[in-house]
């Protein structure tokens, strides 16, 4: 038997690195394996990291240069038709206070920075010589003995541990390999995200989007943005760039027969966007599958004898209309998995009975509580009314309401009725409204 660790973590994304940071602080001996050239090299997100768990992992993170791009103090939800954009806009200095409730990130930078924090924690731990982060290595197989996970294989090398944390991301091949998830996951439970990072001079960016030195805007788009396909658009401000992109329901995209990058081009050419994007230079184009937060698409279990699954590999993600939460779920699940390892090590017992506590902790946390509470909202967002008729009628009303002419002006109620008649029906909207009031 070769060298044995307390824990092997597969994947140096947010779930894996968060787990690693907790383990290092608890002097646990672990091996984190990342297949990219560095942690973050394979990772894509929109992306906003919501919540404040980051400050638990890296106290005072905001005092450092690295890591995040901008904290979010300005949020906007925009309904779009072909020519118009009708926005709900909220900005508040309440959001200016560290540790901040959300930060924008670019994953190749952020994950690399977080990996640096893991290394610092390893160096300071009692297990400094026995823990490591190894990059450029692909884990091909989970090793089992008598039904229990005992380690991993990468090429000809085998590494053993008391337990393995799978934090391999949404395309969770290893989770499937050990039978915790279906070997074929149908398109219904995932979406595809496409994105460009567009650079501006920092002063241009800050003036154009009314940003402070480190404050930022998040803008989500519903309607025309997704070209009639289930989904929506996003625009997030980074330090000297924006991340702009789409999340498109995989099944609906298949049925509508559109190319994701063609829809992205049309979105970028919308009149409300062209003035935002003027003079920008695209630095990178990226794409990634993202799960949609439907519990029916989750792995059948997220732990087994000697193994736990964290982050998006466990299907932990929620888009209930207010925000896309995935990275914060990854962080919390990584933390909880690590706490379970620490407790298991203290007991000297890594059996299924003990690792079940990970599931319990996740059920008791906001992650699975919110995912369960907002399942109906997830389903509501599949309602075709949300992508065409609703944004169209909102923009129609806006156009009537904000048009000032030289004819007698109808009352707003009448404008609403006109807009509804043109784009939907009272009955459909009442049904939708009742649902929305119940689930959101």
């Amino acid at each position, binding site marked *: 038997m070769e060298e044995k660790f307390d824990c092997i973590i597969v994947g140096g994304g947010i779930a894996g690195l968060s787990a690693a940071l907790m383990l290092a602080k608890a002097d646990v001996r672990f091996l984190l394996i990342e297949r990219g050239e560095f942690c973050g*090299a394979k990772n894509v997100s929109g992306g906003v990291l919501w919540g404040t768990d980051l400050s638990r992992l890296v106290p005072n993170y905001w005092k450092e240069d690295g890591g995040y791009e901008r904290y979010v103090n300005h949020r906007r939800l925009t309904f779009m038709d072909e020519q118009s954009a009708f926005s709900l806009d909220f900005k508040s200095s309440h959001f200016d206070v560290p540790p901040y409730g959300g930060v924008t990130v670019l994953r190749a930078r952020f994950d690399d920075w977080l990996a640096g924090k893991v290394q610092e924690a390893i160096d300071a731990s009692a297990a400094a010589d026995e823990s490591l982060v190894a990059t*450029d*290595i692909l884990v091909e197989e989970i090793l089992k003995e008598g039904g229990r996970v005992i380690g991993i294989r990468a090429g000809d090398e085998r590494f053993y541990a008391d337990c393995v944390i799978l934090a391999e991301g949404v395309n969770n*091949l290893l989770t499937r390999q050990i039978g915790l998830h279906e070997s074929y996951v149908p398109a219904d439970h995932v979406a595809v995200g496409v994105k460009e990072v567009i650079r501006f001079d920092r002063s241009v960016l800050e003036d154009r989007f009314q940003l402070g030195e480190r404050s930022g805007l998040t803008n989500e788009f519903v309607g025309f943005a997704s070209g009639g396909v289930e989904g929506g658009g996003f625009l997030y401000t980074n330090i000297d760039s924006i991340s702009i992109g789409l999340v498109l329901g995989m099944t609906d995209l298949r049925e509508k027969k559109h190319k994701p990058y063609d829809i992205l081009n049309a979105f970028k050419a919308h009149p409300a966007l062209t003035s935002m994007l003027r003079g*920008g230079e695209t630095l990178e184009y990226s794409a990634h599958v993202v799960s949609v937060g439907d519990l029916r698409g989750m792995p059948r279990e997220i732990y087994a004898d000697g193994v736990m699954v964290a982050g998006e590999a466990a299907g932990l993600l929620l888009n209930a209309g207010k925000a896309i939460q995935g990275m914060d779920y990854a962080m919390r699940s990584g933390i909880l998995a690590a706490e379970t390892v620490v407790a298991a090590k203290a007991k000297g017992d890594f059996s299924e009975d003990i690792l079940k506590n990970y599931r319990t902790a996740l059920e008791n946390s906001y992650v699975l509580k919110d995912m369960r509470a907002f399942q109906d909202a997830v389903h509501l967002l599949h309602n075709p009314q949300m992508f065409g008729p609703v944004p169209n009628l909102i923009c129609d009303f806006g156009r009537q309401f904000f048009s000032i002419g030289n004819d007698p002006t109808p009352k707003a109620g009448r404008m609403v009725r006109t807009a509804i008649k043109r784009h939907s029906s009272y009955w459909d909207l009442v049904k939708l409204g009742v649902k929305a009031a119940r689930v959101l």
Partner: protein
Amino acid sequence: MKKLTIAARLGLVNYRNQGRSRAAAHIEVDTGICNDACPHKCTTYMCPANCYTLDEMEQVHFQFEDCIECGTCLYACDQGAVSWHYPDPERGRGVNWSLG
């Protein structure tokens, strides 16, 4: 801003082992299934990196070199034609994001 073609977009992507003449394929596609059995050939429009293309005879072709490992075809193909793996860091292709 000028509209970007997919070729221009992919030109902005850094790939692993770009100098290598014959990288090992990490995705294998049985295009026989695409061409003989598939009712939609959806990967030819859904793939964000345009790795799946149709020729003038409406036949599906696949190349892995431009793949950005997003995973779309792993779910989009419901015909069992796609055998999907992560690229080998040393011998394979695949992305190396600068920003992500």
